[in-house]
């Protein structure tokens, strides 16, 4: 297990470095950052002054190594738009997005896994059809529409939940449902398919023959094997939620990192965008790394494969 962990760790670090190089280069190649900063009415003298002030006139490799070195020390530079340290700006926003992402994936797993198991145990039953309906609806409903429907019902009609903000736990209920619901269908379908396959396996028949109870067979023997692809998928979904919660954050005025990323891109706020890409990528890589470890623990064959 140690060798496997070290191998995966080395791979994760390599991927992180590659991502940092690509994101840095792409953003610098996508247009003159000085022109974006100076605005429409800048003269060429202004542009030169800005290039010098921000160090854009130095070789790209020098800029990259300096940026990476500073980033490794927690210094991501200053936001061009907010004129504040990027690290402060992001740490403030990231906590909201992390909390939302964790709540959403937990919500999705808590609903989707039991439903997927139930659907697999009784294929074509009412539960299976309900699961299928939820799954289709989850993928078909645009999150901005679903979010607004929840707001109309729970905030305006019933006055139970606040429509926007992030001050209390109640502010997170609707965003969690909207974002989590988006992740549910894939998890549920994968759980169902995995369970259907596993339930017909010989070792399940053996377990039943040995007199193991239904719940023990389902959750101890079958789910352990069926859940492996779900773990990998959840890691990907979690990474997606961190970066892709722009719409949900905008609807519920959550001011998280997803919305900040979208706003920073539209404002050419390079330091913020670079830092966010790096941080989101790190999370993605971290989740994938953790899911690999979890899968290796669940299925020892993976460790040697």
């Amino acid at each position: 297990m140690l060798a496997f962990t070290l191998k995966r760790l080395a791979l994760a670090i390599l991927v992180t470095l590659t991502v940092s190089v690509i994101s840095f280069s792409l953003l610098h190649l996508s247009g003159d950052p000085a022109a974006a900063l100076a605005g429409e009415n800048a003269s060429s003298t202004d542009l030169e002054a800005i290039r010098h002030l921000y160090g854009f006139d130095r070789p790209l490799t020098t800029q990259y190594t300096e940026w990476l070195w500073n980033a490794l020390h927690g210094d991501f530079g200053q936001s061009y738009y907010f004129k504040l340290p990027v690290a402060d700006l992001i740490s403030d926003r990231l906590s909201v997005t992390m909390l939302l992402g964790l709540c959403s994936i937990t919500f999705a797993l808590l609903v989707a896994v039991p439903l997927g198991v139930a659907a697999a145990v009784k294929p074509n039953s009412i539960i299976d059809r309900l699961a299928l309906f939820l799954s289709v609806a989850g993928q078909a409903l645009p999150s901005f529409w679903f979010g607004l429907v929840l707001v109309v019902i729970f905030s305006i009609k019933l006055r139970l939940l606040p429509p926007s903000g992030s001050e209390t736990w109640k502010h997170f209920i609707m965003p969690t449902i909207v974002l989590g619901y988006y992740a549910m269908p894939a998890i549920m379908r994968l759980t169902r398919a995995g369970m259907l396959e596993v339930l017909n396996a010989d070792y399940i028949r053996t377990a039943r023959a040995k007199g193991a109870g239904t719940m023990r067979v389902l959750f101890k023997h079958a789910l352990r094997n069926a859940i492996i692809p779900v773990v990998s998928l959840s890691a990907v979904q979690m990474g997606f939620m961190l970066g892709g919660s722009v719409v949900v954050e905008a609807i519920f005025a959550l001011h998280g990192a997803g919305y900040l990323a979208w706003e920073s891109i539209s404002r050419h706020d390079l330091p913020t965008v670079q830092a966010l890409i790096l941080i989101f990528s790190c999370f993605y890589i971290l989740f994938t790394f953790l899911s690999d470890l979890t899968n290796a623990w669940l299925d020892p064959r993976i460790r040697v494969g």
Partner: protein
Amino acid sequence: MKPFLSVSAFTLAALLSCSQAHANKADDTLHVAFTKELESLDFYYQSAREGTILNRQIWDGLVFRDPATGKYVGDLATSWKWIDDTTLEFKLREGVKFHNGEDFDADDVVYTVATVTNPDSHVVTPSYVNWMKNVEKIDKYTIRIHTNGPFPAALEYLSGLVPIYPDKYYAEVGAKGMGLKPVGTGPYMVESVEPGKHYVLKKFDGYVGAKHKADIGTIDIRTIPDINTQLAELFSGGLDLIWGVPADQAEQMESMDQLTVANESTMRIGYIVMDAAARGGDSPFTKKEVRQAVGYAIDRKAIVENLLKGSSEVINSACYPTQFGCTQDVPSYSYDPAKAKELLAKAGYPDGFTTSFYAYRDRPYAEAMMSYLNAVGIKADLKFLQYSALRDMQKKGDAGFGFLTWGSNSISDVSAITSLFFEKGDQDFARDDQVAEWLKAGDTTVDEAKRKEDYAKALTKIAEEAYWIPLFSYNTNYVFTKDIDFKPTPDEIVRFFDMSWK
């Protein structure tokens, strides 16, 4: 049974724990929403309307333009006079204190202007301040502003675009500190700032300027980007006032007892630009008859009544009617498609022609115009772009036929619109020497009668030649609870210090 129980438990728990913030006058707090995340609270380092709104609450200028009368009154100054065409002398108000207790005097004005006019300070909108050469201190409460050439709109700029900062505090904290903890002399002081997200203003009891002393104790401002979420907050009691509500939604809210819908025109006007100077190569629009035909082809009144609604109105002159120097007494083009066809035939286009039509906002308005143009034979192909892309094209001389708008940055002087579009700049598609000359003359004399005369000549020729077809003024819907007394103004500046509880 179990699912039912769990749902009931959840509902009950939610009911019991329901204690969301409700806006009301009992806690003397007005809850409002900004749509845009503001980059900084330092006025000189941001360019959003929200920043303009906050500026007027937190800081004062030397003068104040009363929105009710349109007259300038002393704010941080008590009197002023033009010494010559480039020197304006102010007597400053004594006994004024900044929110941090610092005394206000001539040094603050000298320091503020010297700081923001210094090119190294990189203020976001240099045109707000770079008309000033320097400020000379005569004595503790007398200053003279020396301008870079005659600048008749000086008082207009000083009434809103040049807030005065405390010299000691600003020297200490700089733009960054001012953005996080602003200090001014205005009716409201800043209590807390969460950058981009949340601002809390408190009434400043020591206020002595020309604006109203604040009545409402606390102004709580949250940034909520989605207008539907703002409406939901308004319905559920989390907000008291929002603005920029689309016409159809505002109409629905008019029937709700607890809400007031106020509609007010804004300084933004819509217009059709045409490439009379052939900057993008030869085109039908170089012919005056074609440009006039465009004017006669479009039923502007119908567009205002059916699409813009509210207090929007048809305008004929290339400026907003209440701006200084903006006469509406110019040739106009009422809806007359037959005349349009006649003019097109006279210009050599009896069967019309095909052209691109550029626009960047309000697509339904652009589409309505295109259908009117199509009816007289001008087959327009809509090119809908981002504003920055369209502006870049225009600077290069392209996109010479399209529907655009301009809001004059709330500056109530005709020079805030005509100087940009008719004085041979890179967005001037008329390039008329005589028009540019009249406008420049108006921009550089402090004689008000002479200015009005020059602008009238220029605006009349712009209309006669149909360089632009001015279309209509815009409007904004404000929706607020019945608890507040509030009257919006055409400059789109929400003045919290003018509001009170009913």
